[in-house]
C-alpha cells in the first residue's frame, strides 16, 4: 500500500458552464480521508460533471479544487496526482479482446504498480476466470474486474460512479463487501448512485445536487431519511 498523496479534497465555489448553460453552480464541499461520501441527485443535476471535474479530467469554468495543499494546475507532480485518482464507473474501462490477466497486466504496467495479480484476482473473486476473454464476461464479473483495476492502481481518491448498475442483488452484496474491505482509513471515497438504500448503508454523509446547486450536505442515518430529503430537494 503506497502512502496517500493527500488527505482532503476542497472544492470551492466550483462553476461549470457548458455552451453558456451553467451545469454546476458554485458548489463548495470538502472530502476527508476515511470517509465514504454519497452523492445523489436527479438525472442532469450535474453529478457526472462534478465528478469529472474532481477527477481533473475536465477544466472548470471558475472556482477551484484543491487536493491537499495544491490544485491540479499548480501541483508539482501532475502525473503523480493523476495516478492518485481512481475512477470506477459502470463502464469498466477494460479491453474486451484481452483476458482478465492480460488486462490487469497492462494496467499494472501503465500504473507502474508491482502488486501481485493473483492476489488481486482472488480479492475480486475472478481467479477461476482469469484466462477468459473479457468479452465473454457477465456484467457482474466485468464490474468486479473493474474494481480489480482500481485496486491495482490503489488511488488516494476513489470516484465511484454508479458502480452498481446492472448488478444483481447477490453481486451487489459481494461488491459492497469488497468495497468496504478495500476502503481503508486513509483513502477518500465519493460514491455516486441512484440506489438510495445502498448509499444509506455505505455512507455516513450525503451530498445532494439539484440543477447544479449543492442543496444538502450532512450526515444521514437511514434510507427513509435520504428518500425524504431527496423528495424535498430534488
Amino acid at each position: 500500500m503506497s502512502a496517500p498523496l493527500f488527505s482532503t479534497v476542497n472544492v470551492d465555489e466550483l462553476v461549470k458552464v457548458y455552451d453558456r448553460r451553467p451545469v454546476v453552480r458554485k458548489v463548495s464541499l470538502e472530502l476527508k480521508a476515511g470517509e465514504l461520501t454519497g452523492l445523489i441527485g436527479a438525472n442532469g443535476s450535474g453529478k457526472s460533471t462534478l465528478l469529472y471535474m474532481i477527477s481533473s479530467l475536465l477544466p472548470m469554468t471558475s472556482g477551484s479544487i484543491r487536493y491537499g495543499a495544491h490544485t491540479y494546475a499548480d501541483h508539482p507532480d501532475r502525473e503523480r496526482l493523476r495516478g492518485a485518482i481512481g475512477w470506477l464507473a459502470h463502464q469498466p474501462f477494460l479491453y474486451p479482446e484481452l483476458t482478465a490477466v492480460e488486462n490487469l497486466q497492462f494496467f499494472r504496467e501503465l500504473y507502474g504498480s508491482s502488486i501481485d495479480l493473483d492476489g488481486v484476482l482472488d480479492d475480486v473473486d475472478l481467479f477461476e476466470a482469469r484466462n477468459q476473454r473479457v468479452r465473454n464476461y457477465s456484467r457482474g464479473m466485468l464490474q468486479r474486474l473493474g474494481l480489480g483495476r482500481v485496486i491495482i492502481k490503489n488511488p488516494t481518491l476513489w470516484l465511484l460512479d454508479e458502480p452498481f448498475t446492472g448488478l444483481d442483488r447477490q453481486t451487489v452484496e459481494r461488491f459492497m463487501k469488497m468495497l468496504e474491505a478495500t476502503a481503508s482509513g486513509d483513502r477518500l471515497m465519493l460514491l455516486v448512485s441512484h440506489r438510495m438504500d445502498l448509499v444509506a448503508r455505505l455512507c455516513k454523509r450525503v451530498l445532494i445536487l439539484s440543477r447544479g446547486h449543492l442543496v444538502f450536505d450532512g450526515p444521514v442515518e437511514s434510507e427513509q431519511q435520504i428518500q425524504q430529503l431527496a423528495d424535498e430537494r430534488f
Partner: protein
Amino acid sequence: MKRFRYAYEFFVVLMLLLFAHAFYWIFLHSPMEAQMGIVQKIFYFHVPSAISMFLGLSVCAGSSVIYLVFSRRKKGRGLWAGINNFFVERRDNVDALARSGAELGLIYASIVLVTGPLWGRKAWGTYWEWDPRLTLTLLVFLIYVAYLFLRAFAAESESRKRIAAGLGALGFADVPLIHYAVQMWGGTHPNVMGKGGGGIKDPTMQAAFMISMATMYIMFGLLLYTRYSIERQQVELDRAYARLIDYELGEPPVVAASAKPSQ
C-alpha cells in the same frame, strides 16, 4: 465596437476615401505595363489580398497557439505567470480572434484564388498552373476551410475549441513545409515579393500599389475588428440570456456578468 465607435467610423470613412483614390490611381493614372497590359492591374489588389490572407491566417494561428499554451491560471508574480494569467482571463477573446482571423483569411484567400487565375489566363495562357505559390495558397485555403468545418459542425465546448486551436496552429506550421515541397516542383509565379517594391520601378505604379495596400489593410483591420466584436457580443448576449432564464426559474444567477475562469 461600442468603445471605439468614433475611431471606428473614422476609419470607415478613411477607407472609403482611400478606396475611391485607389480606384483613380489604378485605372486612370498609373501606366499600362508593357508586357501584360491591362491584366497587370490585377496585381494592385491581388497582392494586398494575398498579404491580408496571410495576416488573417497568422492571427488565427497565433491566437490558436496562445489558446493552447495558456490554458490554466498560474500562481506567482513572475512575468511569465503574468502573461499566462492575462491570456487565461481572456480565453474567450483569444478564441473569438482565432475564429475571426480564419474567416477573414479565407475571404481574402478566395479573392486571391479568383484574381490569380484571371491574371494567369492572360500571362500564362492557363487559368491554373500547379505552381508552388498557387499550390501553397490552395492548400492553405483547404486547411482553413477544414478549420471552419470543424468549428461549424461541432458544439461549442472547451475541448472542441482546443481541437480547433490545434488545427489552427498545425495548419500554419504546415505552411513552410508546403512551401518547400512545392518549391521543389519549380515554378512560374513571378517573385513579386522579392525585392523592395516588388520589381516595380515606375513611381506612379508604386504609388498606386501603396494606396491599394493601405486601403486593403484598413479594410482588413475593420473587418477583423467587426467580426471579433460580433463574437464578443454574442458571448454577452448568451450570458444575459442565461441570467434571464435563471431569473425566470427563480434561482440566483450563477454566471456573473464578468465570470472569470480561474485555475
